[in-house]
């Protein structure tokens, strides 16, 4: 699956990038391709074949604001702002910066509503309202929630928070200890606070909510702690729970009823969320909702993914383990399941399906289709009919070897026998690794180019599964999976993807997994940050790096863009390495813990040369 053939056009672009880009020295020890970002291509043309592509749902609020985690319900992360262009991006510079006062992984993104920016930190999940209209950007308020310390050690993969959402004068977000809060956007006062998760069972919350028709939609984390994953709706006015749907268990709890019409036969049947598990193992089977949510108002459907099944040791849970590692479409009013697609049935590699579902209308085989595009941990990019759950196209977007492809008749992946994990076996060289071809770092879509901009990982793993006992509040994993760089000598790549053909158009190879999200803009510039702390502006059409700035700490957050009170276009990004990559994989990037000094890991052997923990917001403009 290696795509290393360089077309002539791609080589020309590569040389142009190398010439303009002398600053990046982020080389890895075994990087065969050197330290410069490089452009490769599987397609020699270098242009997208799409036309007439559009985002399914309009940007939330005025184009100069950023009111929702992804800017819109479609999860496009696209902005109409167009002042920053490939011609002038080289003049970008820091306008101002703000220390969040918190270290650890700064996933997520700020919001901009009117002349106020809202920032939520990792645990303890402090929120700030920053006045953009005044010089020096003073705070309007800060809110320091009551948030149980116990949550720190219960969150599997760092104490991250993926951001807040805005609606009707309130800021809504989740606390790591399992609460959802509503804050008055003007005063910073807490309007309500609702306990949603049970910390003693390992339930934490890290995801960013969205508000749909007066309901705040939230979901649980804890797929590594033997939780029983759920998604729920709260009344935005009162904080009262309106509905809650579990992702595993009997139909009644999962909200499978008359509306449920999955496209594939194996997803049909009674109580599959319980019967596709041995005994009552479903009760501790994972299926959490820690990723991103999308919403299609025309179909009134909420789309979300579910996490890996627990434990990792597949031996303890024979069967399909529905509805883990699935993409689910639910009625926004009731939570009822309308379709389901289990992308990795009986997952045995920790391939959560929680990555974002991007809602777009695309011309496919000469016909406009209402689709959902999803870059899964399992390494396949899916283009799916979002009304029915039918897979229109599924192609690998990263090097992979666990599957030879998707059986289009059943929707199931064809699994390579030698890459199946099993208890007490050490299965070597599985690609992608458990971090997936892509993880939480969200992709962006530009209707101008018709392309998806996708931050990816290129890691492989050995997988050693073992028996594990469920003990409430402790990890329910039963496996160890040391990782290493994937084929090609790079560990991540920022790619442009054509979801109508399933082809990569260009890619920028990175020495480390690209754990930060993407932003696409109408100016024809896309933005992303890297784990070694570079924030980059890239030409959306060619993949040429136009500008880059070293922000100090690794980027695991997502850029947003807005119009300032002065009418200028600004781009904001968090710097602050963390998440799975910064806490578990890097190991040695902390400096503030005199009692916890770690050796560096093999996966990212010299990341600590380039970055330490941090917590800073950077804002750039021309």
């Amino acid at each position, binding site marked *: 699956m290696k795509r290393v053939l360089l077309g002539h056009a791609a080589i020309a672009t590569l040389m142009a990038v190398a010439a303009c880009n002398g600053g990046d020295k982020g080389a890895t020890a075994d990087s065969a391709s050197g330290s410069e970002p490089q452009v490769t291509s599987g397609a020699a043309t270098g242009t997208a074949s799409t036309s007439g592509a559009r985002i399914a749902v309009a940007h939330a609020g005025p184009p100069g604001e950023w009111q929702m985690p992804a800017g819109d319900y479609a999860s496009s992360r696209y902005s109409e702002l167009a002042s920053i262009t490939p011609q002038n991006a080289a003049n970008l510079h820091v306008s101002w910066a703000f220390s969040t006062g918190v270290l650890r992984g700064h996933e997520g993104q700020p919001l901009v509503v009117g002349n106020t920016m809202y920032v939520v930190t990792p645990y303890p999940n402090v929120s700030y309202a920053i006045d953009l209209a005044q010089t020096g950007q003073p705070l309007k308020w800060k809110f320091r929630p009551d948030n149980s310390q*116990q949550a720190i050690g219960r969150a*599997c993969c760092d104490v991250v928070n993926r951001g807040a959402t805005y609606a009707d004068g309130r800021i809504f977000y989740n606390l790591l200890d399992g609460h959802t809060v509503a804050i008055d956007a003007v005063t910073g006062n807490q309007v309500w606070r609702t306990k949603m998760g049970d910390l003693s069972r390992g339930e934490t919350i890290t995801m960013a909510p969205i508000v749909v028709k007066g309901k705040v939609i939230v979901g649980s984390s804890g797929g590594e702690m033997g939780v029983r994953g759920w998604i729920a709706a709260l009344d935005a006015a009162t904080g009262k729970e309106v509905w809650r749907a579990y992702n595993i268990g009997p139909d009644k709890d999962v909200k499978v009823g008359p509306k449920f019409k999955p496209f594939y036969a194996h997803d049909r049947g009674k109580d599959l969320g319980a019967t596709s598990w041995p005994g009552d193992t479903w009760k501790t089977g994972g299926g959490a909702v820690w990723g991103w949510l999308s919403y299609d108002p025309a179909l009134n459907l909420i789309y979300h993914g579910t996490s890996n099944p627990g434990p990792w040791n597949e031996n303890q849970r024979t069967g399909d383990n529905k509805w883990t590692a699935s993409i689910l479409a639910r009625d926004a009013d009731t939570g009822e399941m309308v379709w389901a697609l289990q992308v990795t049935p009986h997952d045995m590699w920790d391939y959560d399906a929680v990555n974002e579902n991007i809602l777009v209308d695309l011309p496919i085989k000469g016909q406009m289709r209402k689709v959902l595009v999803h870059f899964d941990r399992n390494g396949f990019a899916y283009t799916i009919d979002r009304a029915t759950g039918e897979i229109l196209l599924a192609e690998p977007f990263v090097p992979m070897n666990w599957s030879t492809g998707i059986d289009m008749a059943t929707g199931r992946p064809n699994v390579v026998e030698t890459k199946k994990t099993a208890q007490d076996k050490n299965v070597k060289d599985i690609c992608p690794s458990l971090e997936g071809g892509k993880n939480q770092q969200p992709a962006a879509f530009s209707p101008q180019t018709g392309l998806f901009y996708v931050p990816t990982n290129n890691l492989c793993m050995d997988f050693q599964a073992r028996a594990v006992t469920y003990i409430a509040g402790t990890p329910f*994993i039963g496996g*160890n999976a040391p990782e290493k760089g994937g084929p090609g000598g790079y560990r991540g790549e920022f790619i442009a993807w054509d979801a109508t053909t399933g082809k990569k158009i260009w890619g920028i190879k990175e020495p480390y997994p690209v754990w930060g999200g993407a932003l696409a803009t109408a100016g024809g510039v896309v933005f992303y940050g890297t784990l070694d702390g570079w924030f980059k502006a890239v030409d959306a059409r060619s993949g040429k790096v136009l500008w880059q700035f070293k922000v100090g700490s690794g980027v695991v957050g997502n850029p947003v863009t807005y119009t300032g009170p002065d009418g200028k276009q600004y781009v904001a990004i968090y710097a602050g390495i963390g998440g799975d*990559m910064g806490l578990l994989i890097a*190991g040695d990037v902390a400096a503030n813990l005199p009692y916890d000094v*770690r050796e*560096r890991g093999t996966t990212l052997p010299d990341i600590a040369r380039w970055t330490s923990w941090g917590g800073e917001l950077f804002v750039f403009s021309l």
Partner: protein
Amino acid sequence: MTSAVGTDTGSNYFVAGDSLRLIEHPEILPAGFPLQIKPLPIKNRYEGDKGAIANGAKLFVGYNCLDCHGADGSGAMGPSFQDGRWHFGGSPGDVFESIYQGRPDGMPAWGGRISNEQIWILTAYVRSLSSKDLSTENFTGKTVERTGH
């Protein structure tokens, strides 16, 4: 060390190295009261016992300590045990207490859930891991395997 005391004219404050100032009326002390306080460390009868440490390693996996503290205690959601550094003290008594009572940032309390005997065995194992001097990180050295969630 005595600045807090220096501003106060009273004598009923504890000063490091002069513990008896704590007592306002030394004449009430019983005869033979030790004037120097010597620490009497709590002993773990499994300390350094190879068989117990091997059993401790099994308990460490069996009770899912491993997934929070990393393979061989190399650090994950919970702190590393390989660095010779301790947040809550590294004596056998301190480590026993950490396991027995739990700690605020998410370390579960195991007292009452598993036997004290097993906690002492885990204490011996956890203490046996702390040996490396990781003060300096030189980027040309070797690396350890880590796993993500």
